[in-house]
């Protein structure tokens, strides 16, 4: 482990040296203000704080002169705008739709943001992006996965992250690849999810995907996220005898379900988790070996093959800044990248006029290997959705999530089926 870190830091040093002398900034180059709407208070405040740290890191790297193989990093600001610095201004959505709208309007009218980024929760992204649309300001959404956000025909809305539909699609493509390469057949699928926006969005996409790829829905279970027992839900799944379970849960309910499946002997070939509860370190600590073999879709992974070698460096910088030295994760990595994509577009636009920035965004075409993500590229289709964005699938193997799909970036082979419940 020590050796790897040494190599990484040497590489960074080498890159810094070759960057050449630090370019001088035009004395009076005004700052380019980017408005960021995040849940800084309320129930999502802890996630919001992490996202803010990631965005600020990206801002400092764009304004700094240490270059990494990432778009717009280390060019001391925006070269085509006289090396003007980008400045992020934050406004609190409190995780509520009405506050998110107000926050977006405040950033546009008061802070004169040239573009907006945010907001994590899909409902707050809906209202904040509407405010941007009405004001004619580009809105970049790096982290909300509700499919309908890019189905509203908005002109100024761009989303870099894949959405629930893509993730569902990935699961079915994975199953298709397994069938072709390992002749594994799966027929009956159970769709389980909490009854909020997260669980319903994922569930609908999984159900639609099943019809499209010719799988039978064994059962669809939706449950109140704050439930303290899941007897009925587990029995429903058991009596529908599925081959595979899709599960969209937070930590407390994920624990209840996995223990319930084990207790009731619900033996399935695989459980496909929609991130959230299943990737939380506290869940892994509490569930121990019982979650061995669970698959999850992910948008970011530290150890996928051919990764951009900037990944560990960014992770290192993030740990130093983040509260409790938390590592970079799917959410923070996506928001980090969002800032870079926006900076890149503004720079290519060579101006802070909304139309110019919007036009530049439509022409964004960042190759996958220049991102932290396992994506093919970042390129927005007509609806503003990044069509190069694709999820990866990881599997929990001896307590750690390892990338297993797409096979060309996989780090570990797939373990199929999931190991039976240990007594």
């Amino acid at each position: 482990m020590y050796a790897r870190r040494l190599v990484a830091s040497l590489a960074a040093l080498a890159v810094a040296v070759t960057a050449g002398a630090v370019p001088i900034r035009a004395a009076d180059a005004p700052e380019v203000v980017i408005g960021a709407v995040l849940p800084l208070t309320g129930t999502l405040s802890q996630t919001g704080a992490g996202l803010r740290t990631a965005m600020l890191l990206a801002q400092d790297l764009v304004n700094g002169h240490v270059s990494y193989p990432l778009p717009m990093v280390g060019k001391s600001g925006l070269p085509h705008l006289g090396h003007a610095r980008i400045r992020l201004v934050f406004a609190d959505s409190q995780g509520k739709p009405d506050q998110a709208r107000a926050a977006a309007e405040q950033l546009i009218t008061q802070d004169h943001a040239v573009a907006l980024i945010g907001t994590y929760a899909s409902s707050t992204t809906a209202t904040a992006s509407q405010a941007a649309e009405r004001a004619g300001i580009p809105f970049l959404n790096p982290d909300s996965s509700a499919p309908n956000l890019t189905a509203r025909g908005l002109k100024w809305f761009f989303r870099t992250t894949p959405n629930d539909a893509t993730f569902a699609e990935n699961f079915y493509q994975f199953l298709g690849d397994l069938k072709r390469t390992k002749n594994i057949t799966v027929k009956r699928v159970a769709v389980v999810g909490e009854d909020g926006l997260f669980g319903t969005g994922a569930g609908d996409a999984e159900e639609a995907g099943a019809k499209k790829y010719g799988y039978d829905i064994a059962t669809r279970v939706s449950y109140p996220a704050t439930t303290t027992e899941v007897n009925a839900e587990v029995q429903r799944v058991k009596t529908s005898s599925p081959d595979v379970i899709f599960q969209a849960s937070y930590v407390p309910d994920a624990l209840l379900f996995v223990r319930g499946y084990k207790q009731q002997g619900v033996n399935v070939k695989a459980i496909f988790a929609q991130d959230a509860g299943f990737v939380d370190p506290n869940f892994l600590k509490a569930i121990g070996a019982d979650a061995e073999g669970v698959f999850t879709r992910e948008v970011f992974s530290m150890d996928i093959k051919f990764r951009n070698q900037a990944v560990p460096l960014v992770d290192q910088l993030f740990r130093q800044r983040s509260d409790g030295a938390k590592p970079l994760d799917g959410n923070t990595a996506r928001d980090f990248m969002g800032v870079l994509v926006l900076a890149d577009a503004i720079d290519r636009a060579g101006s802070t006029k909304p139309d110019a920035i919007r036009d530049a965004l439509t022409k964004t075409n960042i190759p996958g290997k220049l991102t932290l993500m396992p994506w093919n590229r970042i390129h927005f289709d007509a609806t503003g959705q990044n069509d190069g964005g694709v999820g990866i699938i990881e599997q929990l193997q001896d307590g750690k999530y390892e990338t297993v799909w797409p096979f060309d970036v996989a780090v570990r082979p797939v373990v199929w089926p999931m190991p039976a419940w240990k007594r």
Partner: protein
Amino acid sequence: MRPHLIALGAIVVLCAAAAFGLHDTVTLDLLFTLLLYAVLGQSWNWISGYAGNISFGHAIFFACGAYASALCVTHGLSPWLAFPAGALVAALLAVVTGFPTLALRGHYFSIATIAVAALVEVFVRTSPWLGGANGFELPIASGWAALQFSQKGPYVLLALALFAIVQLATMWLERSRLGYYLRALRANHAAAASVGIDERRWKLIAFAWSAVMASAAGVLYAQYTLFVDPPSTIALAISIDIALIGVVGGIGTLWGPAAGALVYVVLAKGVALQIGGTGKGYDLVIYGAIICIIAAWRPHGIVGTIVDALRRRRGTATATPA
């Protein structure tokens, strides 16, 4: 009566001036939220303050208006229809909730409102025609017919009009048979019955009007936010926010809800951001502490405490509580 009218007049003039004069969206948004929450606080105050039955499900009446507006707009009808439609559904819901429980002891009604609110939330969440868990996103339009504006001014005017109507209605309440009967029921239950007051009937009337007010506020919220879903309109947290505004301001008083709304908005907007931004929950600690202090040492709330002080200084009672 006179001083209250003057006060209301002053507020109307002040806010109207701001609505036309100011163009700063942040202040106007603050003003809109303040007026809306003052209306919601007063609507809650009618049943929980004047009638004395504390409701913890008031968000469902607010949601009636919001969903009525969303349904109207997404079915090509005018959002103005949402006012009568929402009001009707809200009043019906109030009667259904209130009828079996309003004559019972306090806790039964409070917990019944929580139960009914939970049932309504499950019903909306599991009904596709009500948007299920995704809720509704209202398409962008503008103009008075569409009840949607790109500028904030008109929204503030509408909220101000609703606030004025609600305050005038409450002034009327304090000098009406309904008001006298509600005060009698709260003051002495046996004496009230002996003068022919049917507790269930009069409290249901108060509850229905309270629901109608909340529904009207819901319509404005939907037209302002253009997004309606269960967590932002029906959840228990919304009902609790509304209740706490009523309490902090001063339960059973004319100006309590307005004062409570002011404290809530200033706290939620101002203080919360400065110190809440670290994800440490300080905003909850401060708000919780304020409610505890008021409940334990100043249970009559801000306005209630002022009224008590005035009353003590002036010896005998003023005509009616402020």
